[in-house]
Each structure stands twice: as C-alpha cells, then as structure tokens.
C-alpha cells in the first residue's frame, strides 16, 4: 500500500474492527488519519470513525463489495477485497465468476481487473455447515481467475505481493488453521513468489504426497511418521492451483511411482481430484499403483466436534491411504 497509491482494502470490519482474523490490524490507524484519507469523514469529533478511503469498511453485502471492487479495478485501481470467510464469497459468485473472471475475455482484452479476493477458507472449530467451506476448488475451475493457497508464511507474503501486482483477478485462500504458523519471511519488499510454481518441501523416494494449504502440514507430519516405518515420502506443496505447476508434480511421481493427493475440500470434485486425474493421464506408465485421493467427507460440515473431526482429513487418513497403495 505504501508502494502503490492505487492499492486499497475493502471488506467487512477490516478497518475499525481490525479484521475478524486481525489480518488488516493496524492499517486503519495508519492510512486513515489526514482529512484527505476519508471516503466519508468521521461522524464524531473525538473518534476516528469515518469510512477510510484506502481501508473501506463496508456493509455486510458480499455481492456489492466484489462488484464495487471490480468496477473500481476496471478503471485501474487495485483493490484487495476481504471476504470475512471464503464461505461468504458464495454470495458473490455472480460477481466473481460472471463478471471479474470474464471481463478481460469478453472485452477482447480491452479491460483488465487487477483485483485480489482474499480470506480464510476451510474448516475451523465447530463453525458448522455454512461457515466451513473450502472454496478454492470452485474457483480453480473457472477460466479467467488465478487461485493460490499458500501453506507457509514466506509464501503467504510473497504470493500476496505477487497477487496485488498481478493484473488478473486472483483468489488468495488462507486457512484459519494456518494463521498461527510462524516462519521466516523476507524483508525485501521486492521478494515475490511467482504463481505456477509448486515446491518440494520434503524430499523422498518411495511415494509422493501432493497437497496444498493446511494439508501440506498434515502430509509433512505423516511423512515423519512414515520415516519411522522406513518409508520415504516426498511432499509437494502445490501453492498455486491455477496456474498449476504440473511439471514439478509429474517429475516427483515419475521418481517415486506412487501418488496420494490430499486436500481438505469435499473429496468428490475437490481440486485435488483434478490433480489426481492429470497425474493419471500423464504419468500412467510411471505409476505402480492408482493415484489415491484424501479429502473431506462428502457431507455438510456438522457442528458436533466429534462429528466434525470425522469430516476433516487428518494424518491418519493420509496414512490409511498410503497403506492401501498397492
């Protein structure tokens, strides 16, 4: 935001409330100070309670939020939209898919939409069926969008920078279970992590675990457990769903001859299923076993913690799938 005055944030409770997951904490205080910083000036003399120009607190209207941001982006501004949870982005589907994703194509390249739509996606702690969706697979299905799901802090920083500078609409999925993960990040403001590059985060030789977002960490734990059993698992962090780096994934599978794709989304039709299909197509001759999918149970997320834990894929589910690899 310091580098480019066209970058602004827009979403529900991101300013005064600091964001429900505190991702935008401190931005309102920093960018909404001078009289010129307000879209709507403060209502009360003693309080900073105006609507900021660069940090815009909105009414609770996901379709309108995405639509306004898309319209502003068409004139060259660079909005970073927060969806309070990616589950709520379902309300804004028409604006995301029928508008933002399609504009560059429908206009024959005349208009661009440099928008970022970010937010926490995936299950957390008993949020129930309407608040627990993994949406990245829905969006990675749509031509015209780019979709990324970083699993580590340095990737999150580098990919968010890349997303903001990208001239295409980017869906930036965060997982609430990952907000607490700590790690080294670069201080270099030009350190971007480009899209379309997967990363081998653990080398191995007996099988390949392909995962993204929180499931990368689950797979890394599973790989450690397997080491104790004398099995060497390679873990590939997809990071970027669209564009997808199939080269890195296929190279790993060709080396190990076995693949398990793990994702938190509903197993049937989740984006990992697409990855599994492509591995099957391209690496058939190199595979010693069918490609396995590990995903969430195909049920609406139940409230009861006992039931919820059944639905969310964990280390045991990954190990089970591996043991069933012929």
């Amino acid at each position, binding site marked *: 935001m310091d580098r480019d005055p066209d970058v602004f944030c827009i979403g529900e409770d991101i300013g005064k409330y600091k964001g429900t997951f505190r991702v935008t904490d401190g931005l309102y205080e920093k960018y909404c100070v001078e009289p010129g910083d307000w879209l709507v000036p403060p209502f009360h003399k003693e309080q900073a309670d105006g609507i900021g120009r660069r940090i815009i607190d909105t009414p609770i209207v996901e379709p309108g939020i995405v639509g306004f941001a898309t319209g502003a982006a068409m004139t060259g501004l660079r909005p970073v939209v927060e969806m309070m949870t990616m589950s709520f982005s379902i309300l804004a589907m028409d604006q995301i898919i029928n508008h933002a994703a399609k504009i560059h194509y429908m206009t024959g*390249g005349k208009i661009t939409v440099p928008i970022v739509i970010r937010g926490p996606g995936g299950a957390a702690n008993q949020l129930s069926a309407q608040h627990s969706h993994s949406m990245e697979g829905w969006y990675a299905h749509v031509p015209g969008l780019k979709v990324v799901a970083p699993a580590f802090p340095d990737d999150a920083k580098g990919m968010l920078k890349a997303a903001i500078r990208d001239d*295409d609409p980017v869906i930036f999925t965060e997982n609430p279970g990952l907000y607490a993960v700590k790690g080294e990040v670069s201080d270099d403001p030009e350190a971007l992590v480009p899209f379309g590059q997967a990363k081998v985060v653990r080398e191995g030789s007996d099988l390949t675990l392909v995962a993204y977002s929180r499931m990368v960490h689950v797979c890394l734990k599973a790989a450690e457990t397997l080491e104790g059993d004398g099995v060497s698992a390679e873990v590939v962090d997809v990071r970027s769903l669209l564009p997808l780096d199939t080269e890195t994934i296929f190279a790993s599978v060709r080396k190990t001859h076995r693949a398990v794709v793990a994702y938190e989304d509903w197993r049937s039709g989740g984006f990992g299923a697409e990855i599994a299909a492509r591995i099957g197509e391209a690496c058939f001759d190199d595979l010693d076993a069918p490609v396995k999918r590990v995903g969430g149970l195909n049920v609406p997320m139940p409230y009861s913690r006992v039931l919820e834990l059944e639905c969310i894929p964990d280390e045991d589910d990954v190990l089970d799938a591996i043991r069933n690899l012929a």
Partner: protein
Amino acid sequence: MAKQAEYSLMHAPAGLLDYYRQMVFLRHFEEKSMQAFRTGKAGGYLHLYSGMEALAIGWLGAIRQGYDYVIAAYRDHAYPIILGTDPVEVMGEIMGRAGGLSRGKGGSMHLYDPDRGFFGGWGIVGGHTALGGGLGLACKYRGEDRITLCVLGDGAANAGIFFETLNMAGLWKLPIVFLIENNFYAMGTSLERHAADPALYLRGAPFAMPHERLDSQDLVKVLADARRIVEHVRTVREPYLVEAITYRFAGHGAADHDRQLYRTRKEEEEWEAQNDPIKVLERHIEEQRLASKETLEAIDEEMLKEADRVYAEADAMPHPDPGEVYDHVYTKMKPEAGH
C-alpha cells in the same frame, strides 16, 4: 411543451438536426442488427433499442463524452455509437468478427469502449449496477469531478444487488446517476406484475439520494433534464436516481416473436403513433422551421444507406482465427497445457 424562447436557449438549430441524424441512424442500425440475426450472421441474444433513442442521445448529450463513465446492460448498441465508436466495429462484434469491438469474444451484449468511457455491455440483469458503483467509487477515490451514468431497466431495479449498490452509493456519496429505463416490461412481465410499487423512482428515498421520474420520448426535454441532473451530480457530488419513462418498439430480444403474449398491439400502436422519439423530434424541427419534410426524408435515406454500408463492411470482416480462442483469458498468461 417548451416555448420557442426556451428552445433557442437550449440548442442551436444545427444541434437538433445532428441529433435527428443520429436518432434515425440508430433506428436503421437496429433494423440491420435484426437482419444480421435473421440471416444467421448474429446468434445468441440481440436486444434492440428502437423507440428509446431519445434516452441515450439525451443523456449522453449531457455528459462530458470521453471523460465521464457510462455503463449499461445488454440493450447497449446505442451508447458506444453515440460516444463515437465506429459503428462498423459494433456491427462487426454483433456478427462475431475478429475486427469487432471485442474481437468477436463478446457479441451484442458485450460491447466496450473504455477509452471513450463506455464500460459495457452486461448480461446479468442488475449485476452490472455494482460495477457502476465501483466506477463511481473510483472517481471519488481519485478526487475527480467525473460522473458515472449507470443505466438499467425496470426489471433490474428489483435485483438485490441494485439495492446493495444504491445503499453504498448513498452512504458513501458517490457521483453516480442511476438511470432506470422503465419501458414497462421486464422481459415478458409487465411493471404491475413485477414491482410491488411501480413508482420505481421512490427506490432512491431509503438511500439518501434525490430521485425523480421523467418522461423520456422528447429529446429536447431529455436534454434539459439530463443537463440539470448531471450538473447537480458533478457539483454536489452525490448520487441521483432517475426513473425514465420510455417504450421499446421491438421485442425484449430477437427470440421474442410473440409480444402479444404480454402486451397489446393497441398499446404498441399508441406509443408508435404518439411517442416515437423520431416523430416527436420531427415535430420540434418542423415547428422551429429548421428543415423541411423533404430534408428530413433525405436524411432518412442517407442514414439508411449509411446503415447498409456499415452492415456490408462488417459482413466483409473475417471471422476470428480458431487459434485466438485462448487469447485474453488472462492478461499475459495462456491457460496451462494439459488442462
């Protein structure tokens, strides 16, 4: 009816004749578009503006063309043409040719000319109004004195996204004119059958913006109203809701073959006889003695020839190369191999 003195204050006589040429050309252009559809040169959807010309000409005559933003829905052929886009490129796009305005990627509903301020061209009823809100937000963000003209239909005025947009526009005081082109039918459903309260202009009331209903078949009146309202929005910097009463002579779209399913021929004939914007403008021209009947007929013939020329030139354009199908999905990236 305005008096003689008011006319000379509002327009130089040459102005009205230029508007007349434009109006007649648009009428013929729409007829040629329908010909393109009937001969299989255009497919999908085609929504004609015939009967509503005074609205587009009047409002676009009141804005700063090429500076202010204009956004509309799918009945959109008139706006880019009035703003100066080459009608050959518009017809070429309707015919899906490579040299069409959107390179054949959009079609009749997806016309855009952002350099001239025209931001489309949209197929989701009401969906584009939020984009219009965003255009207005961008103007305020940048501290510009630009205004946004956001056009929608009476059907779109019921969409939830429209209310979300009105609320934010009123809350944040965005410089936008929301222009409801009320032609009394949301596709095949009449106003009484789709609006709980047919006084659509009152929808501005809950959202802190001035709102009014205006007759819109008389170009002279439309120009006067539009100039007043545009000036207000540009100087006061707040949104404005206008319900413009108009009528479309054609069906909703090209597939609407049986308009008598939802309206009467008698109603159509009344509007065509008494409120055709072309005939209303002719009456002004004749009353002010700006041109003779013969001159007007000559203009009509000339504009028909012009529309024929546009059609022929568009039809001569090549179709897109199949290899172009992957262009412009992204700004720099092609969809990845093996997908």
